Structures are given as structure tokens and as C-alpha cells.
């Protein structure tokens, strides 16, 4: 039974299957009783990320916990990376793969800039990331990325999320991922409003993050918000519960 239960409103259908695949058979999986039971490779380290659009700006928030199942090892884990002046990448999932994928993508982005003498657009970056992940279709990187950026000369806000195999979802408002995915869906759906300015967007995304991770034992222990506007790139640390 355990291997075949799929969560009804999980954002990434294919990804759920991969998550289930690692569970031990015979354990009945409940929403609450996670830590003694089976663990999925995407939930081993714990993470929470959300990307949101505002008026001529985008933001990605993440928690900063680095754990080994229930043990917290670090409280300063970096999950959001600036790829170029117009693109931010957030990665949830296995910490080792978060590091590797961000490094390999940085290589691709930098080589593109040198070769083509122009910066990669966020939508192009998103597709490249998708190809990159799918290239490992049968032995994937255990990450679920978020891309946020400003597209083109008009700096139109762009966000997208993908599962670990590179299936993209594009929205106008927000995308979430990580162990607190469900919780983040709830807080974002409640608090989000379109066309917020950079300061309001920061407030909104910060509250969404803090409220969500408090209901998730694997995420939290600090947070950070990266805000990107046509002229500025701002990083703010969040003060939250450290438990």
C-alpha cells in the first residue's frame, strides 16, 4: 500500500511517484507520523521555498535549515542562488544535489554569457534547467527547483517551478516547493495579492514562509528572502522560531 498512495493535491504528479518509490513497503504512511516511519530522499534534509511575483519585481524565500532527518545540523543553508542580474534559482530537496545542481547550472549560465555575449533570460534558463534535469531521467537529481526572474526589456516578472524530472509549471502568482509545500500552498493562497511593490512583497512572502515552516518539523530554523527588481537585488534575513 505505501508505495502506491499518491497525495491528492501534490503539485508535481510525477515527482510524488519518485518520492514514494524510496519508502519501505508495508508501512502505512500518515501525514503526521513521519519521522519514525519511511523517509523519502527528497525529504531527508528538509527545506521550504516559495517564489512570488509583484509589480515589476519577484522574490524567492527559503528556510535555512539543514538537517539529517530529525537532527538539525546547520541553520545557515543556502538554497537560493543568483544566476545573473535577472534570474534567481531556488532549490529544494537533497542538500548535496542542491549544491551540485546550482554549481553545474552556474557553469552553464556563465559559459552562455561568455559564448553569446548576452545574459540568459529567465524563461530560457528555466528550459535549460528542465533539459538538464530530464537528461538524468533514470537517475535524477533529487531537487525540485524554482526559477524567478525579470524577463526581457520590459522586466516582466517570471516564475516557474519544476519537479525533479524537469516538468515545468508556470504561474502568474506563486510557486512553492519543499517539505512545507502543502503548508506554503495554504499560506500563499491566503495572503497573496497581485501587483505588490517590493516592500509589500517582502512582507507577504516572509509571513507566508514563517507561518508555513512552523507547521513543519523539517523546515525552518531561520529564513531568507531574495528580492529582485530591475534596479536592485536585496537579500533580507528572517527572524523566526528556531525549533
Amino acid at each position, binding site marked *: 500500500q505505501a508505495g502506491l498512495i499518491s497525495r491528492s493535491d501534490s503539485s508535481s504528479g510525477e515527482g510524488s511517484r519518485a518520492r514514494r518509490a524510496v519508502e519501505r513497503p508495508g508501512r502505512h504512511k500518515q501525514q503526521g507520523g513521519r519521522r519514525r516511519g519511511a523517509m523519502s530522499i527528497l525529504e531527508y534534509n528538509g527545506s521550504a521555498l516559495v517564489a512570488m511575483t509583484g509589480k515589476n519585481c519577484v522574490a524567492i524565500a527559503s528556510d535555512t535549515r539543514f538537517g539529517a532527518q530529525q537532527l538539525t545540523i546547520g541553520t545557515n543553508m543556502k538554497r537560493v542562488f543568483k544566476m545573473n542580474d535577472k534570474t534567481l534559482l531556488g532549490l529544494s530537496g537533497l542538500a548535496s544535489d542542491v549544491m551540485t545542481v546550482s554549481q553545474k547550472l552556474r557553469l552553464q549560465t556563465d559559459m552562455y554569457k561568455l*559564448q*553569446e555575449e548576452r545574459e540568459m*533570460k529567465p*524563461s*530560457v534558463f528555466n*528550459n*535549460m534547467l528542465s*533539459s538538464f534535469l530530464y537528461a538524468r531521467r533514470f537517475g535524477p537529481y533529487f531537487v525540485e527547483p524554482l526559477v524567478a526572474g525579470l524577463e526581457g526589456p520590459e522586466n516582466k516578472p517570471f516564475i516557474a517551478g519544476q519537479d525533479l524530472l524537469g516538468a515545468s509549471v508556470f504561474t502568474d502568482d506563486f510557486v512553492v516547493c519543499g517539505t512545507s509545500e502543502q503548508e506554503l500552498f495554504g499560506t500563499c493562497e491566503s495572503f497573496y495579492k497581485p501587483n505588490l511593490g517590493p516592500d509589500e512583497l517582502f512582507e507577504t512572502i516572509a509571513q507566508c514562509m514563517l507561518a508555513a515552516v512552523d507547521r513543519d518539523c523539517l523546515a525552518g530554523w531561520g529564513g531568507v528572502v531574495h528580492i529582485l527588481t530591475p534596479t536592485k537585488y536585496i537579500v533580507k534575513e528572517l527572524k523566526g522560531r528556531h525549533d
Partner: protein
Amino acid sequence: MGDSAYSFSLTTFSPSGKLLQIEHALNAVNKKGKTSLGIRAKDGVVLATSRKVPALVDLEGFHKVNSVTDSIGVVYSGLGPDYRVLLKRARKHAQAYYRKFLDDIPTSQLARGTAQVMQEYTQAGGVRPFGVSLLIAGYDDDGPQLYQADPSGAFFGWKATAIGQDFVNAKTFLEKRYNDDIELEDAIHTALLTMREGFEGEMTEHNIEIGIIDSSRKFRVLTPAEVRDYLDEAAD
């Protein structure tokens, strides 16, 4: 190809520092190849070539000017079969690029990639250089562009250039007539005049081929009827 019996390059330096195979390839282009030329206007690019064939050849479906993508076209001088190989490689390169980035390949990147292939064939084991020079025309976010790629793998951006048998005279002719503000219609006219300069016999819409790309960013080969119209204009 590492353990192949052909793991050595066939293109090696002569004592004088030349790569004779490349020189010979250039001869195949410029001594034996039919003349081709390209002109970059401020709102587009035109490619033209001679399409002289023996009398009984069926011209239907025979094209020297081809599109690589919707917004990039190419023409050659030299060995037709070698051209076909490069054309296929270039098309594949452009499609692979699109698949990876979901973005159209810039003309300069396509030219660079094709020239890279040509260079590899001057160093790889067991192969000879391509016996063609290519003229690549495209229109992208950086505007209209024209590139030439040589058998050596060298590639250059041009305002106007010619390759093949008559290229020296043609380039001189072009230099006199080119100006930075030239419009596409004038460029087509100039291309025809330049072609006619070195043309043996009568130049008709059947023995030349013209390709253009304008601000719509769609490359197309002109039909013989369209070429006829331009020829009639040029005859005045």
C-alpha cells in the same frame, strides 16, 4: 574513433607553416566553385548564387540557397555534397539549441558552431577539410547579419562579400556600390548587377538563385518568377 586505424590527422603543417590541405580546399572553392555573394542591407540580407547546370538537369527541387531555420539562410561555393553535410549539421545544431533553451539560435552562434565543425575536420583523424565556403544570412535581435565560413574554420562577419570563381572582381564591384544605408530592395538590385559582371552567357531566372531575409525575420528563396521581375528591373 580513438583506436581507429585513422587516428592521425591528414592535414599537417608544411615547413613553410602552411596547411596545404586547407589551401587546396580553398582552391576547390575559389577556382572551381561557382560564384556566390551576400549583401547586408539595413533592413535585411540577400544571398545570390549561380545555378548553372548542364542542359538536361532537372532544376525542380535543386537548391543551392537553403534555410537553416526560419530566420537563417545559407548558400555556398564549392563542393555541393560537402555543403549538404554542413547544412544538415547546421540545421541539427539549431534544433538542438532550441530544444535546450526554447529560444531561437542567434545567427552569430549558428555561424560559430558551423565554423567550429569545419575547423574540426582540419584536425580530426582520417578526414579532409570541407571543400566549401558558406555564406550565412540571418535576422535576429542583433539585426540583419551576414557571415562567411571557410574550409579552415575561420568565420567573418561581412557587410557584403563574394566567394567562388569571380570573387575578387565581385568584391571590388561590391565595395564601390555598397553604403551603410542601403535598403534591401537596392541590395537585391546590386546583387544582380554584381552577378552579371562575371556571368558567362545570359543570366536568367533559371540559372541564378536568390534568397532574402527582411524585417519579418523569415528567410525565403525567391521563386523564378520573382527573380524574373528583379532581372527585368535591373535590365533598365
